[in-house]
């Protein structure tokens, strides 16, 4: 099974984001850093194996897992039924509120207000799937390949609004870009889960064990302070 495989090769291969701060972005040496990256490091350390990071985009992370290019996806990934058909999910390891964000002068307070507006979203992400259901007919949803393109599209003014996670939006706003980024409305509470290949039960059980351990020991809280400037919300720890 996959867990033995990992122990045998002494290496855990994890798909992480690199265009999705604060979960995963790149430092000035272009190596991934962020909450997901640290979480992956924590898991590898606990398993007593080395860690190999594979930068992925939201669009290709599931194919990576399906085709066993990686053991785990720790990539701020939300759960939904479509995904559950093709991969397995651990318990949640990080909070995530999906919302629509835009500059302060954009008058949007609910999904209905999106009519006639252009919203950028990363193709295949949970926010894409949810927004596709919520948005009125005449809202223009522009779907980009990965988060970096989506964010770039917003920052260069190619879209008026973007749908993404609250923590991500905060991080972008921090950049001090002239357009600013204010929360307009929340689409969904969609915490992050670790993804495993369908049927890797032993691995999944082990990952769940380690997440619980991390939550109780305060390890994950520590990471949360480091990257989100806040402790993990209580409901995550239940």
């Amino acid at each position: 099974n996959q867990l033995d495989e990992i122990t045998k090769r002494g290496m855990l291969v994890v798909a992480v984001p690199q265009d999705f701060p604060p979960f995963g972005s790149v430092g000035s040496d272009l190596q991934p850093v962020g909450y997901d990256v640290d979480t992956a490091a924590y898991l590898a350390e606990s398993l007593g194996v080395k860690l190999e990071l594979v930068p992925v985009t939201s669009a290709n992370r599931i194919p990576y897992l399906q085709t066993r290019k990686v053991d785990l996806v720790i990539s701020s990934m939300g759960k939904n039924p479509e995904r559950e058909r093709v991969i397995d999910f651990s318990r949640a390891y990080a909070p995530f509120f999906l919302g629509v964000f835009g500059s302060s002068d954009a008058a949007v307070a609910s999904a209905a207000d999106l009519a006639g507006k252009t919203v950028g979203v990363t193709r295949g992400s949970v926010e894409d799937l949810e927004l596709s259901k919520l948005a009125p007919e005449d809202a223009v949803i522009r779907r980009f390949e990965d988060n970096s393109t989506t964010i770039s599209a917003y920052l260069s003014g190619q879209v008026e609004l973007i749908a993404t996670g609250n923590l991500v939006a905060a991080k972008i706003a921090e950049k001090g870009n002239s357009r600013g980024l204010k929360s307009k409305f929340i689409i969904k509470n969609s915490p992050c889960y670790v993804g495993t290949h369908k049927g890797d039960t032993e691995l999944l059980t082990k990952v769940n064990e380690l997440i619980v351990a991390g939550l109780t020991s305060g390890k994950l809280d520590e990471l949360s302070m480091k990257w989100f400037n806040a402790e993990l919300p209580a409901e995550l720890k239940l």
Partner: protein
Amino acid sequence: MDYTFQFGELLPYSDLIARGVLSTVILAIVTTVLGCLLGTLGAAARAGKQTFLSRAVGVYVELIRNTPFIVQLFFIFFGLPTIGIKLTAGEAGLLAMVINLAAYSTEIIRAGIESIPKGQLEAARTLGLSRTQTFTRVVLPPALEKIYPALTSQCIIVMLGSAVLSQISVEELTFAANFIQSRNFLSFEVYMVITVIYLLLAILMRQGFKLIHYFMFPNLRARS
């Protein structure tokens, strides 16, 4: 191999695929027309005397031909807004394709023009034709005829290159593929089907060009 193919799963998306095909076809047609037109003008400028214009066209051609399409696309879509030029994804994509084809066709058509024997020009001059008349009536038609296959291939290459437009959210054929893939995760099936569609488009385009050729160059028809 323990994988079972599920091509049937793509059926619900046939609408999306059809729309993707349509936009790819429209992009291809508009690009071909505008690109070849601009290419002809560029070639005319390049083939004449060394002027500022011909040199400027030369620089443009070199710039475009020596940088990747996707980088040009990103530059236009993300870079230009910072200096105040904002284009929609569709416009940016089309612009990138047109300037690309225009650069290549400039070079191709110029080669065609240069392959026309000097005697043809001299004959036209001794008959009293002006420069413009000589270019449009005597030089250009056989030049186009000569480079027609190269031009056809280049137009097809640019059409296939439009796959990259999906990266900036243009909803063409590859976008449809990526979209479906992001919904049902059947990457192999989707890409397989879309690849075959591209192949058919390329074949169709070649046939289309042949048809145009048939009407454009009746002298070749007569010979065969």
